[in-house]
């Protein structure tokens, strides 16, 4: 007996909102990887000489650099938040028969993020 199989269109990820937000989440990982690469190259180049360091720091202040940073920041923030919110699904912990509530697991991750961000801010701005 012949069966019919509905073909999957290339725009399947536009057909339902959750699929769209999933694809955006995956797409934002490019910005995470890209920014890591940028930082590594930046540190390597900045270490060459005092002049190189000054030129690179100056280039960071250009409008293009600020716009690119802002765009990267938004995407990386989206990436981090969506993954942090998924943590309770991956980390299932029980205390006896009771499961530790999702909000405590996700809250712990956010708290850790906040503390690390504060330490880094303190090191850069005030340390």
């Amino acid at each position, binding site marked *: *007996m*012949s*069966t*019919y*199989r*509905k073909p*999957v269109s290339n725009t*399947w*990820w536009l*057909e*339902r909102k*959750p*699929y769209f937000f*999933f694809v955006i989440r*995956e797409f934002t990982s490019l910005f995470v990887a890209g920014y890591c690469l940028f930082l590594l190259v930046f540190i390597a180049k900045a270490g060459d000489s005092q002049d190189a360091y000054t030129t690179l720091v100056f280039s960071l202040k250009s409008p293009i650099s600020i716009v690119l940073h802002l765009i990267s920041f938004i995407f990386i923030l989206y990436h981090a938040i969506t993954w942090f919110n*998924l943590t309770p*699904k*991956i980390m*299932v912990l*029980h205390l*006896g*028969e*009771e*499961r530790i509530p999702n909000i405590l697991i996700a809250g712990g991750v956010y708290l850790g993020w906040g503390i690390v961000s504060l330490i880094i801010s303190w090191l850069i701005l005030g340390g």
Partner: protein
Amino acid sequence: MATGGTYLWKRRVSVSETVELEIFRYCPEKDTTPLFKSYEVPFREDWVVLDAINYIKDEIDGTLSYRWSCRMGVCGSCGMMVNGVPKLACAAFLKDYPSGKIRVEPLQGFPVERDLIFEMDDFMNKLTEVKPYILRKEGEEKPIEEGEYLQSPAELAHYKQYTLCINCMLCYAACPIYALDSSFLGPAAIALAQRYNLDSRDQGRNQRQEVIASHEGIWECTFVGECSVVCPKNVDPAAAIQRAKVSSTLDWFKEKIIPWSKEK
């Protein structure tokens, strides 16, 4: 939306007394491609999509084919795409679709046999592959006269959620990965494997691991998460898959760090 109208903002408004169901029709003997047929069905406050489809079958068109049985979200037979979302037709109320137009299709990602009936062999084979039953190591099976394997409520709590699966396959229909590549083991089969892996009485994890940790198993999943959203029993297969990924990764590290610890 009761017959004759309802009160909205203290003003009586007249509303539609019928609902239009647009149903996917496919007859393998005469159709090469499917078509949609519209049916006008009376609207009743307490009717679900399955009631409307039963009405069509009984009163309008007896040729319509679909699966159903319990009518109460237990048997898992009446999974269908309702306005593009996988639902149990017995749990999708007509009143939740205020536009008055509902499109019903067979569950996405499966080959369609006729109308709303799809082929479920692939799922059944995958289910068999993960050995969804308690396995004991050789020589560790207790004789019947020694009684049952005891378990504490805390041990039960670790896997109970996964026992609620009714094999309705809504999670497969919600999974774009399965639609794109049907070799993927899929959410329910992995959740059921986890159900036994996390059971304190079971010793079969290593036997299931070959299938679970294969490329077509957990690693094919990209954590879209929709399988858990559509699950009518809150089984949360997406969580089961991610937890299996964590366990498999830990296995790998353990094997690298302490190679002699490999226990079979």
